[in-house]
């Protein structure tokens, strides 16, 4: 059972007051710390658990710059066998181009399963997984929160709206977009980090993939990024928890909310 996991390095933005950079097309990232996208972390763990149970190997793939190798090394330290970074050079990337690049790389690998995270923490598009499955011509399921493998197929649970789970049988090769909470991602041990240093991290320039100009043309272009304008009507309630709770209750009653 060979599993390919697609991962992305994203900035940590919790507690941060984001600022728009000079281009007005992105946020300023100078002071931000970076991590492996949370959803991808669960996908990597799931992939490793699968090969631990059924044998085979995990390959982690990312599209990005040298700095992004940091998340690939983390995947190797967690237990992936091999990592590939596609260097996009100056290419402007959107979900379409990334999925085209990933598809081209993955076509050359032996795989039964491709895992991605449901979405990435930075732009929240959540489209690469579906597009990638389409380019590869394989079955796909999104927002997967349980995987049970039997032979060349898997019983999976897919999270639907309103807390409903759908149980599906999916035949390999298949692509699953993994939801957080599906497992408990492991911490990386020092020995894992040591082993990772000896594992293969392949770097492919995007130009080596033989993709057409059309394949590498972004379908969406960010025109502008802006912070939502401040609106009126917000009230900050001060005091200890009990006082705050009482005040909220009072306001809710006043506004006619039944409590």
């Amino acid at each position, binding site marked *: 059972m060979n599993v390919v996991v697609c991962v992305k390095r994203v900035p940590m933005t919790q507690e941060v007051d984001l600022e728009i950079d000079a281009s007005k097309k992105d946020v300023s990232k100078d002071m931000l710390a970076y991590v492996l996208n949370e959803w991808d972390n669960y996908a990597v763990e799931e992939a490793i658990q699968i090969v631990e149970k059924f044998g085979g190997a995990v390959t982690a793939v990312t599209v990005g710059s040298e700095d992004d190798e940091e998340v690939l090394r983390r995947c190797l330290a967690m237990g992936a066998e091999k990592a590939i970074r596609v260097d996009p050079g100056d290419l402007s990337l959107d979900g379409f181009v990334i999925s085209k690049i990933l598809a081209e790389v993955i076509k050359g690998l032996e795989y039964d399963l491709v895992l991605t995270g449901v979405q990435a923490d930075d732009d929240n598009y959540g489209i690469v997984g579906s597009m990638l499955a389409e380019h590869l011509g394989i079955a796909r399921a999104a927002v997967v929160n349980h995987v049970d493998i039997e032979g060349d197929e898997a019983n999976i649970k897919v999270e639907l709206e309103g807390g409903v789970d759908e149980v599906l049988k999916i035949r390999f090769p298949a692509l699953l977009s993994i939801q957080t909470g599906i497992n408990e991602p492991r911490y990386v041990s020092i020995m894992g*980090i*040591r082993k990772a240093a000896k594992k293969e991290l392949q770097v492919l320039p995007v130009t080596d993939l033989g993709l057409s100009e059309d394949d590498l043309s972004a379908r969406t272009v960010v025109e502008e990024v802006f912070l939502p304008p401040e609106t009126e009507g917000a009230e900050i309630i001060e005091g200890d928890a009990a006082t705050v709770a009482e005040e909220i209750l009072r306001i809710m009653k006043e506004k006619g909310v039944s409590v």
Partner: protein
Amino acid sequence: MAKEKLFKGGEFLITDALPEEIFTPEDFTSEQKMIAQSAEEFGQGELDTRWEELGVLDPDLIKSLLKKAADLDFLGAEMPEIYGGAGLDKVSSSLITEHLSRGTSGFFVSYGVQTGIGSLPLVLFGSPEQKKKYLPKLASAEMIGAYALTEPQHGSDALGAETTAVLSEDGKYYVLNGQKQFISNAGFADLFITYAQVDGTQFTSFIVERQWEGVSVDAEEEKMGVHGSSTRAVIFKDVKVPVENVLGEVGRGHVVALNTLNIGRYKLGAGTVGGAKLLIAEAVKYAKGRIQFGKPICEFGLIKHKIAEMVIRTYVNESMVYRTARLLDLALEGIDPTSEEAGKKTGEALRKYALECSINKVFGSEMLDFVADECVQIMGGYGYIKGNPVETAYRDSRINRIWEGTNEINRLLIVDLLMRAGLKGELPLLDTIKKLTEELLTFRPSMETAEGVLEEERKMVSMAKKIALLSAGASVQKYMQKLAGEQEIVALIADMIIEIFAMESALLRALKKLQKEGEEKARIHVAATRAYINDAFPKVDLMARQVFAAISEGEELRTQLMGLRKLARYTPINAIALRREIAESIVPVARYHLTRI
């Protein structure tokens, strides 16, 4: 990895190092960063989430968390691989300590003992048999370690211990009798590294197992802080310790005791960096959310000042700790950890940097006290209420100035070590001071401000060294061998030395960043360094005046002060603007942002 220079212990005081010659947090390798990230994730996932539980002593919880940490190789980080450790370098192991020191005393005290004073004596001085027997169990948390040095009547004066060890008639074991006080981990430790006098005078180290007959512990102490940790007296009553459990040589216990403390001291500095970073995040988050007079308090000048000062001192502490850690790594290079001599050679190499280790201990513990105190102040009444992590941090922090040798003892030690290095000829101190005194007669201070970013500061640090050396030289000349008796003067000299190492570590780090990444990326590093030196330099000048005023009078004093005035020239800068700039840079990200892992 770039090759930094292996300076001698204390050499920073007589040599102006170049930025490329020292290691800075910007030089962390990708492996070191991964190790730091791993510890940080473990800290966030396993410790932060249990903040409340870990604030109350719960031995089972502590042991289970130590086991989890062991599974990630954190406990054996500094032990040789052949004994179940990871054989990591000091920079990496300091990063682990930094990121696991996070306000949960139940964990960080136990972890600190287990990986520090509870196991390092074995790593450094254990025989191959002792290492094989105990280290794998300490690395895996199968055994919990403790370090039993202090006695009811012997704290700072530890080598005067009263616990006795008498060799049995058949020569097979020593019989230990005595009591040890304030022993961390004692409530659930399986192994004690302890000390006793053989034949009344031969201070000797022993490895004692908890399960042996005659080993018992007293009730838990009720402490001011670190409530999640266990602290008890340990009592030895006719405990039979096999002779093979003597650690090191009979009569050489002081070598074991002092070298172990060295490592503990610089690593305490790594822990205080970690603690301070978390407190900074707490303070900034609070200051952003607390609205007074219609705006968040982080927009007020006095709060900006506090936030900036917390960041500055943490930055300085961090620069010192990793500079020292790398220095130790360089000193330890080439020692084969599997060889018979490994422990002895390691101990010797580390001894040479005892001065830097003590500096880190004193600076780190006082830095964290400052940061915790200001954090409480920013939160006002809320910071004073039990249940607020800041209130706990304020009390927890206090122990750092007491354990691992009080800051007073460490200050005396700093000067003592320097004098010894001078006397032994390890450092050309006397020559340097003599030359300096001669130079000073004709020295004309430049009236111009040095051109270039940090150039003025570079000059100030260099001058501060001359000031400290002159004060030290004059004090030695006056008191000769009796200087140690003039503790107040010794402490002033120590404080000058500490400030010099602090200033220079920040300066070289900021310069290195500046050279590599340019002015814009190094902006806050430069601001923090300038603000720090602008305050520290006049402090050094003042301390020198205090020394001279205490040792000289009349014409001699006037000459000395005149010389001092030539060296201590400086133009104050607008440090208020710098601090505002620093505070404004951290407020949006709400966490310490000068180091990336």
